[in-house]
């Protein structure tokens, strides 16, 4: 058990765009140590899985790269990353205010000697579904988690690796970067503040039984669409449908899949309209003959985002249908999908054929599930609202939220919420 220097540190749970931004804002402003606890083996979270950001349509590197640069120029030891780690226990610290936190770090099988040469993966006989691509392809059990992983090194999936029964990778590595006998690590810290930047997951759209996700191969989610469009995705950037690998032209986007639905997520997920407009543009950019249709209740593109909507609407090949799809069935011969939907502006009900359907899955907060795995003192009050967000920060207790842990927002606003959380931390620690 290692005791780290932890005086006055801040704990940030979640190393996505919001968590990292909050860490940078704090350390750049004041002399305070920050620990970022990240479940995955790399930081960056969901934004790295995007093909492009809206509204500028630049790749995620252009946004997140700034953060990694800032990390590099920060003073040594101010920002500490605990990847492959999870918080086990939070208790009140005895002396004064603050919390004692117990963190479990999974065994670090790969050390910093790794040069990302890839020889290990070549000899690895085991495969695993690639969660970075939402399971649409496989990687070896020793793998590079993401093209822009930070820290830049390979990972081992302990669910699929056979360890001592195989060890081929250890032999193949010329840099002694692999140690399959590594043990897990327990880290104990005392922190003054906690920022929850636990982020989101796409809503489980299979629960919307009428839309057939999970039943029909060519019904996918918006997050999968990002991976299909990305050059480093499972199809090398070609938008091919799952059933037969055909390049699709006629794609239906269905908005509010789970969101704004009292049987599912009662709130608006805030990003899906922009995301679908953006994805319709991916299609148009990659295939001039493509013709996406967006089925919507109303299009929510607030403020300057309206320009983005105008841009999409000026492309006459992008069609819009006011009216949400009630039912999807499959044409078994072709794998196409048939959508039952009312076109409200004409008042007619239609059966629309589509080669692929993209469901605009809403954002579900991770925090409720995450908290179930943490043992927390009863006297510590974390105010989670009925939708699973920490909307009201507990300023007196030094418990804050950033990013989608607070409420559904886009990358740009996540940055703002991170700055806000950082400012709260600084104010909370000010000596009056």
């Amino acid at each position, binding site marked *: 058990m290692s005791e780290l220097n932890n005086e006055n540190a801040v704990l940030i749970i979640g190393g996505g765009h919001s968590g990292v931004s909050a860490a940078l804002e704090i350390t750049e402003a004041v002399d305070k140590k920050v620990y970022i606890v990240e479940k995955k083996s790399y930081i960056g979270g969901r934004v790295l899985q995007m093909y492009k950001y809206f509204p500028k349509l630049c790749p995620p590197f252009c946004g997140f790269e700034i953060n990694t640069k800032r990390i590099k120029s920060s003073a040594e030891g101010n920002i500490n990353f605990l990847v492959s780690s999870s918080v086990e226990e939070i208790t009140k610290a005895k002396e004064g205010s603050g919390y004692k936190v117990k963190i479990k770090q999974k065994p670090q099988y790969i050390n910093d000697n790794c040069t990302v040469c890839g020889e290990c993966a070549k000899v690895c006989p085991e495969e695993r579904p690639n969660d970075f691509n939402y399971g649409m392809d496989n990687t070896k059990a020793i793998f590079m988690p993401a093209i822009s992983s930070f820290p830049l090194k390979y990972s081992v999936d302990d669910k699929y690796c056979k360890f001592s029964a195989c060890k081929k990778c250890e032999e193949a590595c010329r840099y002694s970067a692999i140690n399959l006998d590594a043990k897990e690590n327990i880290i104990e810290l005392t922190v003054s503040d906690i920022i929850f930047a636990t982020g989101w997951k796409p809503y489980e759209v299979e629960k919307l039984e009428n839309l057939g996700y999970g039943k029909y191969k060519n019904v996918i989610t918006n997050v999968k669409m990002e991976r299909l469009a990305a050059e480093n995705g499972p199809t090398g950037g070609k938008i091919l449908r799952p059933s037969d690998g055909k390049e699709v032209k006629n794609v239906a986007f269905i908005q509010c899949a789970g969101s704004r639905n*009292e*049987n599912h997520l009662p709130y608006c997920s805030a990003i899906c309209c922009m995301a679908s407009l953006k994805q319709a543009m991916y299609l148009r950019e990659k295939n001039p003959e493509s013709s996406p249709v967006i089925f919507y209740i109303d299009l929510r593109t607030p403020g300057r985002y309206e320009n983005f909507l105008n841009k999409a609407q000026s492309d006459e090949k992008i069609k819009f249908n*006011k009216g*949400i799809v*009630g039912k999807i069935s499959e044409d078994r011969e072709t794998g196409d999908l048939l959508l039952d939907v009312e076109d409200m502006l004409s008042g007619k*009900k*239609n059966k629309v054929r589509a080669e692929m359907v993209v469901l605009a899955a809403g954002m579900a907060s991770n925090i409720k599930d995450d908290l179930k795995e943490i043992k927390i003192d009863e006297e510590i009050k974390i105010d989670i609202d009925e939708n699973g967000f920490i909307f009201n920060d507990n300023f007196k207790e030094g418990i804050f939220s950033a990013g989608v842990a607070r409420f559904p927002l886009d990358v740009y606003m996540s940055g703002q919420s991170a700055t806000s959380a950082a400012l709260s931390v600084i104010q909370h620690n000010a000596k009056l």
Partner: protein
Amino acid sequence: MNNTVIKTDNELIKYIKEVGESNFKKCFQCGTCSAVCPLSTEDRPFPRKEMIMAGWGMKEQLTADLDPWLCYYCGECSKNCPRKAEPGELMMSLRRFLISAYDWTGISKLLYVSKYAEYIAILIVALGVLLEWAVIFGLHPAAGATLSQAVSPDKVDYFFDWPISAFLAIMLTSFIYNMYRKTVLSDKSVKIPLSLYVTEAWSLIFNFFTQYRYAKCDDSEESATKKLASGKYNFWLAHLFLMISYVSLFVAIVFFLDWFQSENSMPILHIVLFDYFASIGLIFGTIYFIIKRFSKKIERSKFSHHTDWMFVTLLFLTAVSGVLLRAAIVYNYSVSAIFYIYLIHLMILFPMLVIEVPFSKWSHLAYRPVAVYFANLKEKAKNLSNN
């Protein structure tokens, strides 16, 4: 865009809220309901448009709308509604509104708004029957009289059955004419050729006797036998059984009352059709629907208005007292026992006929098939003028 001025009516919104439990004001017009509806057609999808029409109180459009009658409350809309706005229940409320809109007397509206008004109305009719009976047959049978002397079938026909039949016929005909005026004649966009009224008449008869639209509620690709086996037609068949039983008994009693007051005329037909089939149909059917309304498991039985309860209860009591009466005659009970059971039976039956048939829920027996007929007429006429 044409500059149509839409008149809205706040009182109507309040009325629709009062006669059902729909949260139609929560609707955000996503169109899921119309898209999932197994009964609405391509050209005339519902209930999304009814949701906004009700939300805005668009009285003129709602009164002219036949679609509430084409809805059989399958419940797909309510099940899938993201706002839990209960579109299926709104269509139910609109049927209640339409019943009161076709009724020029204003009685329906009163009965739908106030359950006490309904209780009082039923009580008045029951007491009226008691009074009429006392005047015609006295308050107890004469000593030694046979049944036909104590309660003469001819007198029952002259003073009870035929007047009520005439009353119902006049009321319903005038209401249906009113409906025709508001839904068909008011629609200036279609002109219906006379021949269509004849050629489309089959749809009226077919829908009256089969209520086939119930079967269409389940639009899955399963075979009909599989649907039957898995109970998907149960509601439809129970409803049909109840309705056929009711209609056959009503017609037989009005025209052949003699059959019921003696024990041996046309025995086989009578015993099989009325003593068994129709009695079982009425009692089984009413109990089935009462259980459904208590258990609230399916969408269409989730909410019950006081008129729903009153209707099914009166029908059940009518059936039970009717079966008792018939049993008393067949098993030769004393004339005085039969005399009183007969009186009680009529005191339940008549309120049901006078109040429920023209002014309340029972009127759907007429409006539903007529609406299908009118809708067919309009659609066919439109197709003719387009070609």
